[in-house]
């Protein structure tokens, strides 16, 4: 296996992009990543596109080919393009496919991209519910916020997590997002903003939930030994891992633990041979505030039931012991589902290059991503190190 490095990154502005189409969104991030890597289209050996549900959101399938076409990759090279789908983990999984392709020696320069255009859909609640078990959860009236709400109910019954501590996740992410130019929300909020917002699924309120977003992100990977030809600041992928669990929440061993997150976390740390305490920042999948609480525990940064104190003490802010979601996370930066996993990579690489501006984590050397599909049926984790 060859070592793999990130040589180019790009991310579109996230938000309600009413004037921009699905394919235009992709071209935005793709162009930025290619320019950043300083390569031309002909040198791209393969393309992996993370996308959850273009079929439902914009009534378009065959996304790989469409993207290759509008990215101008169908002329000279007829570049192979593959869509990757794992609900909200589609982006992280597309990145993993790109890493595996380069690591194996099969390809040299590979682009992983993610794109989702959500605001064109009428009933996005129903489209997202397809990430859960349609026959036995969706059919009963389960929504996506509803499933995470049932995790929150269980968690708050068993462990000491206050409603205020849960709100602190969103407050912190909005603060980080206010320093990220591509973030959907640029405004800071208070605990009161969260507690006074509309109930969506008890105990989760509107400000506990990530928004409906349009956006795209793209990352170029290459063998580490070639990386210096393209960039002065290559970032190595020191670990990639993925794990699966039951599609339905009701079949899990423990409602409040994402076992797939535990498994993917353990695997990625084992493969990268680094300790949790060496991680300078982590981008986790905060589709809902409770998901971030579970993530920092399930990945092993704190024991189960103890995340509340980490937030109470402000340790997850930039400057704290464990900066979490410096991009603003899914909550503030936005959550165009297929793009999220690659935006996480974009943020970690930006930080490790020292290019994060006002939200820079000083001296960041090792960063991590955790991307979740559904209520925890797929989890993809990556670890990165500045070269």
């Amino acid at each position, binding site marked *: 296996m060859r070592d793999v490095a990130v040589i180019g990154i790009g991310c579109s502005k996230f938000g309600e992009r009413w004037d921009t189409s699905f394919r235009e969104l992709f071209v935005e991030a793709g162009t930025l990543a290619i320019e950043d890597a300083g390569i031309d289209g002909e040198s791209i050996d393969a393309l992996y596109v993370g996308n959850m549900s273009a079929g439902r959101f914009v009534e378009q399938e065959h996304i790989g080919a469409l993207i290759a076409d509008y990215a101008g990759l169908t002329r000279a090279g007829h570049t192979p393009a593959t869509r990757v789908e794992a609900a909200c983990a589609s982006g992280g999984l597309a990145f993993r496919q790109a890493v595996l392709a380069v690591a194996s020696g099969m390809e040299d320069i590979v682009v992983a991209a993610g794109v989702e255009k959500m605001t064109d859909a009428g009933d996005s609640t129903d489209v997202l519910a397809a990430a859960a078990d349609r026959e036995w959860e969706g059919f009963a009236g389960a929504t996506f916020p509803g499933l995470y709400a049932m*995790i*929150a109910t269980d968690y708050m019954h068993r462990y000491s997590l206050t409603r205020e501590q849960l709100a602190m996740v969103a407050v912190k992410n909005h603060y980080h997002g206010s320093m990220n130019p591509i973030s959907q929300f640029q405004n800071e909020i208070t605990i009161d903003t969260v507690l006074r917002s509309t109930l969506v699924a008890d105990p989760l309120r509107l400000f506990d939930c990530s928004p409906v977003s349009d956006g795209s992100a793209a990352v170029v990977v290459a063998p580490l030994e070639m990386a210096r030809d393209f960039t002065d600041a290559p970032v190595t992928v020191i670990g990639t891992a993925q794990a699966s669990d039951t599609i339905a929440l009701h079949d899990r061993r423990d409602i409040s633990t994402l076992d797939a997150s535990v498994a993917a976390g353990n695997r990625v740390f084992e493969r990268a041979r680094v300790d949790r305490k060496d991680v300078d920042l982590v981008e986790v999948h905060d589709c809902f505030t409770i998901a971030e609480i579970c993530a920092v525990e399930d990945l092993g940064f704190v024991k189960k039931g103890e995340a509340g104190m980490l937030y109470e003490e402000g340790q997850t802010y930039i400057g704290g012991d464990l900066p979490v979601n410096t991009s603003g996370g899914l909550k503030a930066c936005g959550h165009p589902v297929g793009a999220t996993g690659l935006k996480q990579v974009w943020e970690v690489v930006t930080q490790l290059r020292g290019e994060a501006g006002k939200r820079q984590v000083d001296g960041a050397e090792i960063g991590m991503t955790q991307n979740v599909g559904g209520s925890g049926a797929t989890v993809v984790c990556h670890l990165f190190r500045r070269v």
Partner: protein
Amino acid sequence: MTVARFWRKIPQRYNLIGTKCENCGTVFFPPRSLCPDCRRDGKIVDHHCSGRGKVVTYTVIRTASDQFSNLTPYVLAIIELEDGCRLTSQVICDPSEITFGMPVRSVFRVIAEDGPSGIIHYGTKFVPS
């Protein structure tokens, strides 16, 4: 949901017909045709689940998809049946009544009226018992 997709699971949805692995004794509802523990050594047969169970966790859905929006607010819960299996279902009660471990029993009800396919979906909901 198309007519065939709904009709295919009518016995399961109406009467809580799950499956059981005769090799290890585990009951599955929602039904499985492969035992995840025994896999090919398992022997799967139909199993009529008890309609009695208790609430494991719950929420009150305030914002629903279009198909369920006329029902909001409604109580959604994960219920553990006496047979040991768990499922997701609505509990017909006041949102303030629902609690952990609350004993419930199944009832036959309309789940959603007039979905995209134009059929009325019936199935199992639960009531406090």
